[in-house]
């Protein structure tokens, strides 16, 4: 598409990148068809092509963000389905990230909106605070019926937030501290695993299963000193400074390991985080002190499934013919373009894997989207649950904590992380979520 930026505008690095992205777009409209919000709303403004045009107009003319532009960009899930679809290779992720930053900097949001965003940005990346707030949420849930009756968006968001809090908060995991876990025999490899933020509190069993699976195959796993939230959460709210601070801490932590005992890979068990960590190189491209380090970190970052695929995985000790619906997280299939890895591993481990119809469409989780846009997120969850039901699975497997939380109450069967099933099949314990189920009867 034609663009008209002045040389002065192009002196800004973000604008320069956005201009390049806009120039590759030919406005063919393919992206509209696979955009979840366009499917639901039918308005081009809530499609990638419409948003690209809104962003182009705002940036080209150096305009402050308006309420209207923000509304449509806010409704974007950043699922990046459009990037899988786009034949021209438009890097929508970097464009929408730039737009979000521009909106955050130029649009004063209403007080309730600001407050909600500030609370999420403060609490979620801090595991101890998040843990406490989960207990608080359980108590606060008694107010939900009252709040639901209020005609305010903040009330709907609060109800959505409270509903996402689990009924029981798991015990604190041994991996919530910096620690190195060594395999029994001589190590075949050494990896760092992201401890991260919310996942470790909500579902510590994921990293625990991943560690068992890896150490069983001779891999040493380190949870590095000093790392924490990857920064994705605030990054998607346009809060660049905060996201870069969080990312820098992780880069420092992992570089110290890379330059110390060395790392073969940095593994991420939440694909949402993986998409962001893999993008560190781009995020710090203009930062003299961090550009190189960030690129080094990004270069060895892998989703845990990608790394497990490189191992000679032991044959299943307990072949299970459990029917698994694999729900590919958007950050997995679109963000990282990992399309078939987990399904292949699960099949090899003996599971009967079913692909979910309309599998390219988001479940509505999308970070904190399900709190900020509860109505659209709710409709997408129902749509996803109905599609999952079509393959009548015994369990759902996925690679992202956000999807697990979003789908947990909606699909009527346990939702597990891929590594939990892989660990179990290769000799690990029966996943907790399967224990109370009569599923064991179905094993072949």
């Amino acid at each position: 598409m034609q663009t008209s930026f002045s040389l002065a505008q192009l002196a800004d690095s973000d604008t320069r990148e956005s201009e390049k992205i806009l120039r590759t777009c030919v406005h063919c409209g393919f992206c509209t068809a696979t955009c979840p919000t366009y499917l639901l709303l039918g308005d081009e403004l809530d499609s990638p092509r419409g948003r690209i045009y809104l962003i182009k107009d705002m940036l080209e003319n150096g305009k402050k963000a308006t309420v209207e532009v923000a509304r449509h960009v806010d409704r974007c899930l950043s699922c990046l389905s459009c990037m899988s679809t786009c034949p021209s290779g438009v890097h929508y992720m970097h464009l929408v990230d730039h737009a979000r930053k521009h909106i955050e900097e130029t649009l004063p949001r209403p007080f309730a909106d600001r407050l909600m965003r500030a609370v999420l940005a403060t609490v979620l990346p801090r595991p101890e605070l998040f843990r406490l707030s989960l207990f608080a949420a359980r108590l606060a849930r008694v107010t939900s019926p009252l709040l639901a009756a209020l005609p305010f968006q903040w009330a709907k968001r609060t109800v959505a937030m409270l509903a996402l809090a689990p009924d029981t908060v798991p015990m604190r995991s041994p991996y919530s501290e910096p620690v190195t876990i060594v395999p029994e025999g001589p190590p075949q490899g050494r990896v760092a695993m992201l401890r991260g933020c919310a996942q470790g509190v909500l579902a510590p069993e994921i990293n625990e299963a991943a560690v068992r699976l890896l150490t069983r195959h001779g891999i040493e796993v380190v949870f590095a000193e000093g790392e924490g939230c990857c920064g994705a959460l605030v990054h998607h709210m346009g809060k660049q400074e905060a996201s870069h601070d969080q990312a820098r801490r992780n880069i420092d932590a992992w570089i110290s390991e890379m330059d110390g005992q060395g790392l073969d890979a940095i593994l991420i068990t939440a694909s949402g985080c993986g998409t962001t960590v893999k993008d560190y190189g781009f995020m710090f491209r203009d930062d003299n002190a961090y550009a190189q380090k960030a690129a080094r970190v990004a270069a060895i970052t892998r989703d845990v499934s990608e790394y497990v695929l490189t191992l000679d995985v032991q044959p299943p000790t307990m072949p299970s013919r459990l029917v698994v619906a694999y729900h590919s997280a958007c950050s997995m299939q679109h963000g990282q373009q990992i399309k078939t890895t987990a399904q292949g591993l699960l099949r090899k481990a003996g599971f009967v894997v079913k692909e979910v119809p309309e599998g390219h469409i988001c479940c509505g989780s999308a970070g904190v989207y399900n709190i900020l846009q509860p109505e659209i997120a709710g409709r997408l969850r129902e749509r996803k649950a109905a599609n999952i039901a079509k393959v009548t699975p015994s369990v759902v497997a996925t690679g992202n904590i956000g999807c697990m939380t979003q789908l947990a109450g909606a699909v009527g069967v346990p939702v597990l992380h891929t590594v939990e099933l892989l660990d179990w099949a290769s000799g690990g314990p029966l996943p907790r979520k399967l224990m109370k189920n009569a599923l064991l009867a179905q094993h072949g």
Partner: protein
Amino acid sequence: MTQIAMPQPDPLILAKRERIIAGLQERVPAQWVITEEDERRPYETDALTAYRRLPLAVVLPGSTEEVAAILSFLSRERVKIIPRGAGTSLSGGALPQEDAVVVGVGRLNKVLDVDFANRTARVQSGITNLAVTTHISPDGFFYAPDPSSQLACTIAGNIAMNSGGAHCLKYGVTTNNILGVRMVLLDGTIVDFGGETFDQPGYDWLSLIIGSEGQFGIVTEATLRILRAAEGARPCLLGFDKVEDAGACVAAIIASGIIPVAIEYMDQTAIRICEDFAHAGYPLDVAAMLIVEVEGADAEIDVLLTHIEKVAREHGARIVKVSKSEAESAAIWKGRKSAFGATGRIADYLCMDGTIPTGQLPYVLNRIGEIVAHHRLRVANVFHAGDGNLHPLILFNANDDDELERAEQAGNEILELCVEVGGCLTGEHGVGIEKRDLMEKQFTSVDLDQQIRVKLLFDPDWLLNPAKVFPLNLHPLPLGRAA
């Protein structure tokens, strides 16, 4: 400067904008009436982005009745109406005007009823072409016309432009696959044309409606003919060192009596662009490639492919590569169907859409090369060779006005060439604004007058998708001349 002129907006209409918007908001919920400038902006163009006009307002009705209320109101107010599907037109078919209201059917995207026994599907017109097939494919059925933009384009747009696609060689274009439509006329009357079967009693109105480019009314529902999918289908890739050989091979395959489901042509530039995106295993070292697909039972496919390979070898094919798996076939088609968009990776483009007798392929391909070179530009050729429907993509830099002008000039010359060799200006993209001013090359003034008379029966004031299809100098009501 772009070459195709658009009329000046009517100041009387602009002056009563508030009243028009208020009228729309009385007829559809306010959230579906788009009025802010920021929000109207993305509706200022379609897939022919060199042309842009900010509409007065955009309205997204949720039912046929709402469309009727809107049209009745706007026509009473003498406001121009731009029907819009998914906005994927390459001929500017959905280009707005400053004094016009865009009426989008994107929210009308449901399947209403499927009747497998009688092989029909009734759908709302804003559903995408591919969504129809996706809906019925679990039962082994499909909807045949498959424009390359089928993922995104709507049935409404397909009807407006009488769209084709790769597989139309065997199954025909849109007009051969629509049984009936529900259409809202300019005054808000809702009428049904056609029915549940082909060949309804009385005049064949349907043939008049399909391809009328949104100038007769707005179609809100359609009854489609759906087909049982063949037992199997298999594409093969034929690689040639000479462009002319590939052209001659197409004619020879058709002449030998075989009608494959599709014969698609790509030249080297197009092959490289598409392979980069789709990783389909296209041969990169050939001058031209044909994708030939046949379908049926395995034995039938084997016989047909053996025969096609023989013809291809006789015409200088150096590479013959048959798809070995579903995944490979899917990648082969993904590359072809994404050809236009994938071209965006290397340049902006104007996509031409002329049709020629297949026997003229070698000559026309050569001439296209010369024309584009004369204008100091490059071309990527990718098209439906089986039915002679060309899509030369003229590559240019959209940020360079001079290149755009040269690209448009080259495009015009290519389309004139198509007419010269006995073909026509459009294959499947419609006339829109893009080929409007070339219509007099194709038709005599007698032809055009007759066409305009038909148009005026539906829209005497030129309110529906105006400034398109007919050259502007023919516009002011030529009824006097007609008498």
